[in-house]
């Protein structure tokens, strides 16, 4: 247990203004991980941004005409082109000599699958855009269908568990490696269970010039089938099992990883989620699939050397203070 901070952080927090890029009152479900993540991103990024948003939950629940929850300039075009739209905005701003930052927001569908082509092109052309993927591991807005990001073994409506199938057959696409192979200056994963780390990474990403990419693990209580009060604790387990490694990559190389000081078996992560419930059944198929999932987690732990007793570089020791967003704000 770390020592108590000597400053009253609650009082400090009340003195420091938070930039609220998304107003409350939007239509997200209770416990929506994506809403939380988006709010944290904008808090860190500050008001001098333009957001291009792909089709998906975030876009839908924040903009039911004639209402909008956004306090920043915002545009939604289609599902597959947000990286290209953001690239266009960035080019225009550069031509006009404006320094406003461009953010592209998309879900996992709009990043891993339908939006991948445009994303790859944007990265290859070195646009100065921060692409943020809110990863809830399926097409949620259309009613829970599998995506390239859906974990192996997870139930969705298009990868249901039945007599001859045990959930998604294929693996979660290793997108961070693919993104990094583009050689971009900064790419990282983060989790809503570690908000300080998430915000710090947004600031880090905005500090680089050139394309940057954030993959933010964002639970969906409805689609994952867990209690809406458990969003944070479920996502902590995603990290503590090793299934969702928290990493930073620069120009294709891992430069930091959040160590797991309290490793958990995958079974513990599966338990509170309906989408993994079938893996906990007492059948040979279920046991085998659960073993596969554990093996995937173990492979991550080994690959990124995630087990450690020492605190990580961004460990806040429990104190969650607010900082001003980005080096360009204020």
């Amino acid at each position, binding site marked *: 247990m770390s020592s108590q901070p000597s400053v009253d952080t609650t009082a400090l927090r009340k003195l420091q203004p938070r930039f609220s890029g998304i107003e409350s009152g939007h239509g997200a479900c209770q416990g929506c991980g994506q809403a939380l993540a988006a709010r944290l991103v904008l808090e860190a990024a500050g008001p001098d941004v333009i957001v291009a948003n792909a089709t998906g939950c975030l876009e839908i629940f924040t903009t039911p005409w004639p209402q909008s929850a956004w306090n920043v300039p915002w545009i939604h075009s289609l599902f597959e082109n947000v990286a290209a739209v953001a690239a266009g905005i960035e080019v225009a701003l550069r031509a006009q000599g404006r320094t406003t930052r461009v953010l592209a927001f998309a879900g996992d569908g709009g990043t891993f699958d339908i939006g991948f082509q445009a994303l790859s092109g944007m990265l290859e052309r070195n646009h100065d855009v921060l692409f943020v993927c809110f990863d809830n591991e399926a097409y949620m*807005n259309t009613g829970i269908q599998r995506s390239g990001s859906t974990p192996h073994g997870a139930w969705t409506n298009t990868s249901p568990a039945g007599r001859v199938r045990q959930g998604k057959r294929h693996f979660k696409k290793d997108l961070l490696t693919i993104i990094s192979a583009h050689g971009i200056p900064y790419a990282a994963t983060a989790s809503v269970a570690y908000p300080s780390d998430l915000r710090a990474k947004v600031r880090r990403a905005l500090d680089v010039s050139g394309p940057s990419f954030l993959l933010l693990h964002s639970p969906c209580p*409805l689609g994952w089938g867990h209690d809406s009060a458990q969003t944070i604790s479920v996502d902590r387990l995603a990290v503590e099992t090793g299934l969702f490694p928290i990493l930073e990559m620069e120009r294709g190389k891992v430069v930091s990883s959040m160590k797991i000081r309290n490793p958990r078996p995958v079974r513990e992560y599966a338990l509170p989620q309906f989408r993994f419930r079938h893996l906990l059944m007492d059948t040979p198929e279920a046991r085998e699939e659960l073993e596969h999932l554990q093996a995937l987690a173990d492979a991550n732990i080994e690959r990124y050397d995630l087990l450690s007793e020492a605190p990580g570089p961004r460990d806040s020791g429990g104190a969650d203070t607010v900082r001003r967003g980005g080096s360009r704000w204020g």
Partner: protein
Amino acid sequence: MVEIRIHGRGGQGNVLAAYLLATAAFFEEKFSQAFPSFGAERRGAPITAFVRIDATPILRRSQVTSPRYLILADDGLLRVSETLSGLSPEGAILVNSSHAPEDLRKRLEEEGISLGTGLRIATIPATRLAMEALGRPIPNAPLLSAFLSLTGILSTESLGRAFAGRFSGDLLTKNLALVSSGASLVSENLWKEPTHA
């Protein structure tokens, strides 16, 4: 043709409720139709679902704008003017509420919302019953059962059969028990339309 409109919130199973009524009608060799007024998937959002039941094939596909009955899975929706829109003055509303009808009327009066005196209202605490039996606030079983008991449109046996088509095991047993208890909380055929010669 009987037209029914169901109002509730996303996640309560209101679309399923509509489907269950239409299914029950099918089991009694009637023609039926059930569909939601749809929005993007989201828990908690106001949901409207429509049901039509008739002895002959149903052709109409528009939304139910002149319902004879309303089923409200959430009594807060009485504060929303669209909820009652088009309801026949001699219509009837079954509300999922822990308040008695007179109490409900009075509370709404205090908020400036006046329900017509010809409007028949019945209430049952369907959420409380569901929480006790299922541990989840899904009011369908007792609410639909009370509705059928009041109106006499279909039998609660048919409703039970509709549940059996979608649920099994423990969940089915509990829902069927709720079907029984829901019906017992209201006066049978209180709202039954006289059949004309």
